[in-house]
């Protein structure tokens, strides 16, 4: 049976009469890296705040680890919501200590462990207010990791980071999921980055979930295809089938679209030319997952 870390049912948040989150139902499986995607103002942060207990839902329900006892469930989560939440007048170690003491963890080694995980072991007594944004973000992740959470909720964790900082955070998240088996809900509008780590996606638009899909489903939907316009489509079809073993094919007049072996496009082109077939044009289409997700974010599901 699939184990869900988070399940929301018809979660709604209204300000006055306007629904910022509208009947939102999502499920996150244990071990997933759930990419929560949407434009600014789509309702991502409000949803995350409701899950974390910062905002009271107007209606709907939330279950964490299969239970509606959210106080217990929240003890097993770590969060970063919007900006890194740290005490600027404390060092990295002291910031971690605050969280360790608050969570009633007696083992002081945990402080060194989490600092080491995020690569902040050697910052000494430098106050957090003097940290770069990347360091603050890593410290915030370290704070979220105190108490070995089973579920990490990261709201825009790469905002404002330079490319190296983004890469560091990405690698850190991958390491955490791989080594500690942590489930991650990560929201971002930097799709390219999210697509490098997410194992499934939830696309939110105007407070509603437009689509939820796994990486495999996304690959299936956004299957790369190639279009050829040739003078002899029947002869070309024979070459596609016999030489390249392509069966997923559509022909209309001089136009042929293939859904397989797209990566061999150059070889196919060469082969057709060697067989005296004149190619008027070749183009690959629908090979951009990012484009597909952006389309969902902007237009919703067709």
């Amino acid at each position, binding site marked *: 049976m699939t184990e869900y870390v988070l399940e929301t049912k018809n979660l709604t948040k209204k300000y006055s009469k306007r629904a910022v989150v509208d009947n939102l139902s999502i499920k996150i499986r244990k071990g997933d890296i759930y990419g929560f995607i949407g434009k600014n103002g789509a309702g991502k942060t409000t949803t995350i*705040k409701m899950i*974390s*207990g*910062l*905002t*009271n839902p107007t209606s709907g329900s939330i279950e964490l680890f299969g239970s509606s006892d*959210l*106080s*217990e*469930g*929240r*003890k097993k*989560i770590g*969060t970063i*919501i*919007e*900006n*890194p*939440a*740290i*005490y*600027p*007048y*404390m060092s990295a170690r*002291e910031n971690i*200590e*605050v*969280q360790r*003491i*608050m*969570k*009633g963890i007696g083992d002081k080694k945990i402080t060194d462990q989490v600092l080491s995980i995020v690569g902040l072991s050697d910052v000494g007594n430098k106050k957090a207010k003097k940290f770069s944004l990347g360091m603050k973000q890593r410290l915030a992740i370290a*704070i*979220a990791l105190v*108490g070995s959470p089973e579920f990490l*909720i990261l709201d825009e964790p790469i905002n404002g980071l330079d490319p190296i900082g983004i890469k560091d955070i990405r690698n850190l998240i991958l390491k955490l999921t791989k080594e500690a088996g942590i489930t991650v809900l990560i929201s971002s509008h930097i799709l390219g980055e999210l697509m490098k780590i997410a194992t499934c996606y939830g696309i939110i638009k105007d407070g509603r979930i437009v689509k939820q899909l796994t990486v495999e489903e996304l690959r299936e939907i956004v299957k790369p295809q190639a279009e050829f316009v040739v003078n002899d489509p029947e002869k070309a079809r024979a070459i596609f089938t016999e030489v390249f073993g392509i069966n997923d094919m559509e022909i209309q007049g001089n136009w042929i679209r293939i859904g397989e072996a797209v990566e061999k496009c150059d070889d196919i082109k060469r082969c057709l030319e060697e067989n005296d077939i004149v190619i008027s044009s070749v183009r690959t289409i629908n090979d951009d997952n990012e484009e597909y997700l952006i389309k969902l974010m902007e237009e919703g599901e067709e």
Partner: protein
Amino acid sequence: MFGLIKSDFYKLFRMKSFYICGLIAAVLAGLGIFAANAMDKMQYAMYGLEDMFISQYTGVYSLALGLGSATLFITILVSMFVPGEFKFGTIKNIVPSGISRMGIYFSKFIVTIFISVAYSLLCAAAAFITGCCLAGVGDFDRNIFLDILEIFGLFLLAQIALQSIFQMMGFLIRSTGWTIGVNIAIFAFLPSMVLTLIDFAVNSWLAPVVASVDWLNSWLKIENFSSNDYWPLPYLSEFSNIDILHMDFFQPILTRGLIVCAVYIVIATVIGLWTFKKRDID
């Protein structure tokens, strides 16, 4: 909950302001006794009685007087400490960890009580040392010691009543700058401005109206109304006076003060907690 209280103390002890405000409060408490003693001395000198001058500001006498010096700095520190979690956004690390909002509110309440106790004791100690230096320890026996303990308890009650209001403001306003401003206004200007206006309005306009209606007058007789009686701040000085424990004249003030302070603690806590539970965290 216990972990949260411990972590709140950890945060407090790492705030430079905690030590700076404490130091300034203690210095001012000592200076206050020194200045009062000097004023007495000047007055004696003015009447040519300098040779007869005996300082009344002994260590024991100064002890209770020093308590009051702490209040302004308690106001400032509470106004920095409580909304600090909102300012730094660190409330977003606390709420999602499964601790109830009531727990969060009461943890802060306990720490602010500690601030009140610590600063009051510090100021009392500074005043005591200054008094000892100026005029010796003074008469000190078991009864005085018990009186001082009682006074300290009463003073603390008035202090907690005020601090409950300051904490409520911190949770309502959620900004350190604004909370400090509003709380200092409450502490310093409310009695002299707003309460005076209320007294004027009640005594000048409401009292004659009530007096002109028999049934209302018999039920609600207004004579020399003073809103200060229903505000905890004046009780800080009333409760710093050892005489309040023994003289019959002060008994109604003592009783009223106890009720007023208790009511403010309850009302401010209920409002602060209720709004904290209901409002979203941005």
